[in-house]
């Protein structure tokens, strides 16, 4: 088993966590209402930067996540803007009752930073893998859910959460993320997906650490197969960007979702709900953990094992290209698109526009 610590570089110097810590300090400088809370994980969740700068506005609740959220809710009621940080797995499950009743039901202005999302803390084992957190928190009323792709997007998400009244859950990785953006100014908007690569053959919708993998997969698909893959970074799962999803369905008719999470209830499910609700037909595949716990090891290896790395995305896309044929058929005197996937004929989309 791999070690828990990096051999070469101190973990605190890595991008995502560092940017998260700095952004929180920046907000603290700007607004005295910003306070930070942790459940004995200040160093691991990088909220310790805030502690050093504003010790009087930093609260360690001990290993007591329920208290963490209860106190944060109370502080928000009192007019503060609490950023409560703990591991995603604890934020979403150990303290679900407080998250539900104290924060979401009260619709208070608490920002939850769930670190070590997905299998990013792979070596720590299943108790520290957050593979169900999005399914849990997505269902909670009033809670907005963001899964940033890298450190820059984390900074944007933190600022957007600060500027948005009400509870927000931000799921970030352990901190050793690949960078997909070159800076913070790419037009981040809460609730709006980001088109990372253009393509009209297949669409790959990803978030978090899977965005980097999806972008690389698009490059490989282009280089090896001449397949033009569209990649969408759907950083906000709730509220979801219906427009970008449905445009992709219309343009490519082949959708693959990729998430470091169980395929039950997460990004894939959310995208699937949008498509189902629209009545549009498309070939659809969800990549993620298939109702199973993850193995234990380095995140990169787990992403491969769990089928969400570049190689597996490429395989899924190639398979879909081979088995999902977009065909045109005549309907009501008009030529419409239909899709045939793995032997199943899906109905052609019907144009309900009245003729004038």
């Amino acid at each position, binding site marked *: 088993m791999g070690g828990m610590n990096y051999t070469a*570089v101190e973990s605190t110097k890595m991008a995502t966590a560092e940017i998260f810590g700095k952004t929180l300090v920046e907000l603290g400088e700007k607004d005295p209402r910003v306070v930070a809370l942790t459940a004995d994980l200040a160093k691991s969740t990088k909220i310790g930067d805030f502690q050093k700068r504003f010790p009087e506005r930093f609260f360690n609740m001990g290993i007591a996540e329920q208290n963490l959220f209860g106190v944060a809710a109370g502080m928000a009621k009192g007019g503060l803007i609490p950023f409560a940080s703990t591991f995603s797995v604890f934020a979403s499950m150990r303290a679900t009752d407080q998250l539900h009743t104290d924060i979401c039901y009260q619709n208070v202005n608490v920002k939850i930073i769930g670190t070590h999302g997905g299998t990013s803390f792979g070596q720590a084992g299943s108790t520290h893998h957050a593979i169900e957190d999005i399914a849990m928190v997505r269902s909670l009323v009033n809670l907005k859910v963001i899964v940033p792709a890298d450190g820059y997007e984390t900074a944007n998400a933190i600022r957007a959460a600060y500027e948005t009244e009400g509870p927000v859950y931000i799921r970030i990785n352990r901190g050793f993320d690949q960078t997909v953006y070159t800076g913070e100014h790419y037009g981040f908007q809460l609730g709006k997906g980001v088109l990372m690569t253009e393509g009209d053959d297949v669409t790959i919708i990803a978030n978090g650490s899977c965005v980097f993998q999806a972008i690389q997969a698009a*490059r490989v698909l282009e280089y090896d197969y001449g397949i033009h893959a569209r990649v969408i970074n759907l950083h906000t799962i709730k509220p979801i960007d219906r427009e970008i999803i449905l445009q992709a369905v219309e343009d490519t008719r082949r959708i693959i979702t990729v998430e470091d999470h169980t395929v039950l209830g997460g990004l894939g499910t959310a995208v699937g709900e949008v498509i189902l609700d629209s009545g549009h037909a498309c070939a659809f595949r969800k990549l993620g953990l298939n109702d199973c716990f993850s193995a234990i090891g380095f995140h990169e290896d787990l992403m491969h094992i769990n089928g969400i790395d570049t*190689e597996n995305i490429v395989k899924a896309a190639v398979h879909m290209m081979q088995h999902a044929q977009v065909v045109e058929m005549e309907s009501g005197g008009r030529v419409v698109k239909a899709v045939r996937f793995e032997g199943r004929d899906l109905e052609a989309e019907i144009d309900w526009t009245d003729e004038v």
Partner: protein
Amino acid sequence: MGKRITQDDLYAARIFFNSALPLLRVVIESRRELSSAFRGKSFVFQVSALYPRAPGGKMATHFVVENGRFTVKVDAVHPSPDIELEFSDLHKFILFFSGRGMPLPRMRGVLKNAATFASLLRALLLMASLLQASDAPKKLQDQVLLVKLYFYLLPNGISQLNKAGHQKIHQWALQSPDRAYAFAVTGYPALNSYLRVKEGNSKAGRGEYPRCKPFLTLRFDSPRHALDILMSKADMIDYISKQYLTVEGAPEFAALIGEFLFTVGDYAKGLYLDWKTE
């Protein structure tokens, strides 16, 4: 009867024939004074070593030169080269190219092609002087060439060892997803090289990895700092902390690829001859 040929000898021979000797073309193409000596010339130059178990009884790499342009043929014995350096056994070949001895090969076609051979010898000596040096060259031009030789040699050597079934490297490759390990010096794109590994297969390549961003890139800030690490003159952790070396991508995997680079180096320098495992 010659000394028994061990598996490690075969690994070393493979690295010399398939990874190191082909660098002769790189050396020649990098120096105008060398490449101009071959302008307009056409001939076949072969380096070989007798080995009864090899097809045709010898192992070889040969260069087909047409109008001064070199094409390298590895794993291929030319039946009638114009110039040939033939070692009587693999041990002598390895001792010679690792710089640990000077057993002279049998030379064919040398007198008939004296001028061409002299130019080849100059190129071989330059390559040997660079690769066998214990200190980095002082001139930047030589540093750049030596980094290029290392960057081309080492990933190729790992790939060759994988293909030869080297236990540790092949086991690693068998378990590997599709991943690329790249080597780069900022500001010197011509030095880029990479190693792609997937489910037991491997491929060493030159230039930027074309398919996607590599799984891991060892990026140096200068040729000199690259040589410090490649020649074991500096500590990798120290250089990372000073940002002379950055590990882009998956840093946890740098140690393993680093270990394999040094494995190739141990074969190329003949250090394995000091091992007491066989």
